[in-house]
Structures are given as structure tokens and as C-alpha cells.
């Protein structure tokens, strides 16, 4: 299978490029539904990277990661998010955010360049000329972009999208640097199960019942406010 490796590397690089574009997409999405679509596409990229890297050298763990991603994040989670959330969440309206979209995109770009320069010494130190050169910088960039999205959005689903972008990015790097980690599939499963439990379980639904929306930005009773 060794003749396949150059092909796999190029295909993986392509997936990496698409992955980072979808992370930008999550930042730039003006509507909840389009953010969700970008996220689905992003999870698809992660799954394909896991499958590609799992071919040669063969790694059953990566196939497990890829399958878990396909089932949970491409199909189950979006379906749940659409089913569980009230219709009004997805109506055509702009997501409320702290920073406007062009500025956000600029910041995401700066974060990407930053991530590239931060992670380059790691790749050099590891003398790794393989797929880690692509996956680690992109993973770190996605991580930072996800954290940025999370902190500037004020609604439940866009915040969850930011969180999931961070998780996807951690695994995007993970499939390249820890392909033989015995628990990598369990890690991926644990994070998703956790999130499902939150979403299906209490929090979001009860937030909706109690405050009449999934807008978490006005949940600000708890703070150190001298005037209160």
C-alpha cells in the first residue's frame, strides 16, 4: 500500500484546506442554519482525514474515529439540534454577536497565521515530514477560531458550534499525531456523548422553558454588580 502514501498525503492536504475554510465559515455564518451546515461539512472533512490516514499505515482506531464522526456529528447531532430546538431558532435572522463579521474574519485570519507560526517549531522538533505538517497547524488554528467564536456569540447553538469546532480541531490534529493511541476513539465518543447528554438532557430545553429562547446572552443575573 506504500505507493498510495503520496496520494493520501495530497488528499489529506486538500481536506485540511477545506477544514480550515469551514472553520472560517462557522465564524462568518450570519444565520444559525448556515453555521450548522458549515459545521456538518467540517465534520465530514475530519472524518475523511481520519479515513485517509487510517488506510496506510492501517489503523483501526482511525477508522473508528472516522465512523464515530460520521454517525454522531454529520448525522445525529445536526438532526438532534434541529429536532430539539424551537423553530424560531432557525428563522432567517442575523445571529447576535459582539464583533461584526468582517472584523471577525480578520481576527480568524490573524489567529490562523499565529497558529501556523506557533506550531511550526513543534513539527520541526519532531522531525515529522508526514501529515502532521498539515494537520497540527490547522488543528491549532481551528482550536483558536473555535474559542473565538464561542466567546463572541451570544446564542446557544452558535456557541455549541464554536465548542464543536474546537473539538473537531483537536481531533484533526489528533488523527495525525496519535493514530495509534488506543483510546482515541473513546475520547472522541466521550466528548460527543457528553454534549448529547447536555443537549438532550436538561440545559438547553430548560433554558428555553425558563427564558423563552435559546439566547444565552441575556443570562446575566449572576455577576458582581455593585448596583444590585
Amino acid at each position, binding site marked *: 500500500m506504500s505507493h498510495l502514501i503520496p496520494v493520501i498525503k495530497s488528499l489529506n492536504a486538500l481536506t485540511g484546506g477545506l477544514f480550515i475554510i469551514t472553520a472560517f465559515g462557522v465564524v462568518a455564518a450570519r444565520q444559525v442554519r448556515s453555521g450548522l451546515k458549515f459545521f456538518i461539512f467540517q465534520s465530514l472533512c475530519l472524518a475523511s482525514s481520519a479515513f485517509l490516514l487510517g488506510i496506510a499505515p492501517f489503523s483501526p482506531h482511525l477508522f473508528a474515529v472516522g465512523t464515530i464522526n460520521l454517525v454522531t456529528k454529520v448525522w445525529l447531532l445536526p438532526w438532534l439540534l434541529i429536532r430539539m430546538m424551537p423553530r424560531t431558532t432557525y428563522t432567517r435572522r442575523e445571529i447576535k454577536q459582539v464583533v461584526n463579521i468582517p472584523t471577525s474574519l480578520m481576527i480568524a485570519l490573524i489567529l490562523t497565521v499565529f497558529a501556523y507560526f506557533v506550531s511550526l517549531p*513543534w513539527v520541526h522538533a519532531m522531525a515529522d515530514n508526514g501529515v502532521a505538517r498539515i494537520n497540527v497547524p490547522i488543528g491549532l488554528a481551528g482550536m483558536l477560531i473555535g474559542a473565538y467564536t464561542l466567546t463572541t456569540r451570544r446564542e446557544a447553538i452558535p456557541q455549541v458550534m464554536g465548542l464543536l469546532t474546537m473539538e473537531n480541531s483537536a481531533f484533526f490534529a489528533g488523527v495525525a499525531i496519535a493514530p495509534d493511541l488506543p483510546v482515541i476513539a473513546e475520547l472522541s465518543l466521550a466528548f460527543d456523548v*457528553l454534549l448529547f447528554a447536555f443537549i438532550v438532557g*436538561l440545559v438547553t430545553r430548560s*433554558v428555553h422553558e425558563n427564558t423563552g429562547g435559546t439566547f*444565552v446572552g441575556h443570562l446575566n443575573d449572576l455577576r458582581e454588580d455593585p448596583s444590585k
Partner: protein
Amino acid sequence: MILIIMLLLPLITALVSGLFAQKRVNEIITVTGSSVLFVLAVWAAHAVLNAPQHILIALPGWIALGPAGAVILVLISLIALLSSIYSIGYMRYDTNSPRTFHVNFNLFVFALAAIPLSINLGMVWIAVEMTTLFSVLLVGFDNTPSALEAAWKYMVLTMMGAALALFGILLLYWGARHANMGAFTWSGLVTAAPSMPPVLITAAFIMLLVGLGTKIGLVPMHTWLPDAHSQAPTPVCALLSGIETTAVLYVLLRVLAVVHASNSVHASNWLLGFGLLSLGVPAFLLLQVKDYKRMLAFSTVEHMGIILIALGLGGSAANQAAFMQIIGHAVTKSFWFFAAGSVLLVTNTREIASVHGLIKRSPGAGIAMLTGGLAIAGAPPFILFFSEFSILKAGLLQSHYLVMGLTVSFIAVAFFAIMNHVSRMVFGGDPDRSGERLPGSVWLTLVLAIIPVIVLGLYIPDALHRLVELAATIIGG
């Protein structure tokens, strides 16, 4: 074998309490389970002292217990036992389902116990995540808008930290694979550390410090902590504040051992920086806090700062002091939360300004609140005074004058702030009404919980001393 029993016991207790809907039955099950867990944990800690190389191994590469883990495990089981007794009286008039509470409570204890018992980093990460999952349901247990707000913040921020910590763990694995490590365990990593690239260890350490620090409640990632720790039912607060933070800190401590083993990475400045920030910011926030449960939560952040400063100093004296501080904080903070919970039972308000004359209204709650305040603020003869004093001594011996100067002044500010609020609540003004009686189980918990706070300040048993010494050597540095 005993380790596996300890891991399964809370899980079984959770399952069994799920079968019954009656409050009384659930309480008996939880208290029995926690008592057995406590006895087993003490027994295991004793066995660790006598074991060859001071480690008990149940499943090589997955489940084992060393001295540092034993300290944490005993603390977890002790506070779980006290909380389970306390919850009988505290939740007496609660209208929510007792089954949900007890199932979640036991699952939370299971997740906590899994942290020191797992030695595979992947499993440790999953255990830390499980503590978030089971405790978030308890934080939102009251189902009020502010409880749900707290639960949402808690979930989003700690999962963000978890993603970052995961990246750090994957980086460690990458480096360790490069160095041909055997199993992905704490000891395997310590062995592999010298041949791992320093730049990678630094990166992984910073990610784990920030990621786990979110869960520990380090400033500036602490914003969820006062909310979650004040909104949860009090028995849960005692677990969250007393031991969940330190159980996660234990993970950071094991990472620190890897950093120290590499010999070329210096974590000290990062720890001192985050430590001073986490000590200083809440010390000043404590001055203007309005809600006394939030006061307790901010004091937790402040103590995490002190522990981090001790770890940043390094050396065996400071490491031992850090462990004493961990033990002292766990027993004292859980006691103080039980005291604050009884104040809440008596007065039905969380506002500091509307609580007066506790000492007349309910002498028990008043004395407990005052003792807890003095003990947590670091007054002698309580345990935290001695551990803070040893940290100070270790710092001065290493000529960290600036750091120690700042530490002492921040602790003084926090002392003043806490005692100012507490004395106003306990002595200030006349009570509005004469007091309600505290339930018997609350009394029992207060009496049991204060024993270690006072006794450990005056006398440290030889076995505990040896355990702390051994635990401190694990950190190295």
C-alpha cells in the same frame, strides 16, 4: 482488586438508588455506599504506604493508585460521606425528585474517584469530563433561571477548557511516541520526558494548564466558578468546591511531574503568574461580594492560587506544603460550605446584608460560620494556617521575596474581607426573628466535619505525614 471495587462501588450505589423512588431508601443507600467507600479508601491509602514502591496496581497501564492519588481519593470519599449525611437534612423540604439527586450524586462521586484511580491519560481526561457531566445536572438541579444560567456557563466554559486540555494530551502522546514510550501512563510519560522535544512539552503544559485551569477555576478562566458553586445545592457545593477543583489540580500536578522530569522546561513562572493572579483578583472581589455562597466560591479560587504558588516555588518543602494546603482546603472548605448551608436553612436568604445576629438566632450556624471563616482565612490554630506558613517559609528560603510579599498581602486582604462579612453576619445587629432549629443530620455533619479542621491543625498523624512526603516526591522539581 480493592481499587476496582472502589471504582465500581459508587456506580453500583447509583444504579441501586435509581431503582427506588422513596427519599428515605435513597438516603440510606447513598450514606451506606459513601461510608464503605471512605473505609476502603483509608484502607487503600494504608496499603499504598506498605506496598512495594508505594503503588497499588489493579490493571497495569489503566488502574493504579500511588501516594498522591491516595491522598486525593481519601479526601473525595471523606467529603462524599459528609455531604451524603448533610443532604438528608438539607434536602428535607426539597420538592425535586430525590431519585435524580441521589443517582447524580453517586455518579458524580464515581467520576471523581475515577480521576486518581486512572493512570492512562486518556481515561483521566474522560473522568474529568464525566465530573462535568454529572455535576452540571446537579448545578442546575433547582431548575431556576439563575441555576440554569450557572449550569450553561459551567458547561460551555469547562468544555472549552476540556478541548484545549485534549489537544495538550494529544501533543504529549505525540512526543512520547517519538521517545518510544511503553504505555501512555503517568509513569511512562515521566520516563519518556527527557527524550521528548522541550518545545512540545512546553506547548502541552501551557495547554493543559489553561485547559485544566478552566476547571480548577484559575483567573481569568474562573468566571463560571462563583456561579456554579453558589447555585448548586449545598451538599454538592461542598463536593464541587472542596474536592472537584483539587481533583483536577491533581491531574495538573501529575503533568507538572512530567515537565519537571524533562529537565529543560521551566514551568515555575507560569505557575507563579497564574497563582498570583488567582490569589489576588478574588481577594479584592471578596471585599465587595454580596452573596455569602459566592464569597465561599471566590475563596476557593483564592486557595487554588495559593496552591499554584506553592507548586511554582518547587522543591520538596514547597511541594509538601502544597499537599497540606490541598488537604487543608478540602476539609475546611467543605466544612465552611456546610456551615453556609445551615445559615441558608435558618435565614432562607443568600444575601450577606440581610443576615444579622446569627449568634442569637441560631448559635450552631453562627459558631460554625465563624469557625469556618477563621479557618479558611488562615487563622491559627487551624490547618490552613500551618500550610500557608510552610509555603511562606519555603518561599523565603528560596529568596522569592516579591512573590511572597504579594502572597502575604493578598492573603491579608482576603482575611480582612472574609472576616468583615462573617462578623457582620454573625454578630452585627439583632436577628429579625428567633431561629429555626437545624435538622439533626446537619448538626451531625457540622460536628464530624470540624474534627479534621481542628485536629490536623494541632497534630498530623504519622501515616498521613509519610503519605504527604511520598506524594510530594512524585511532583519532583
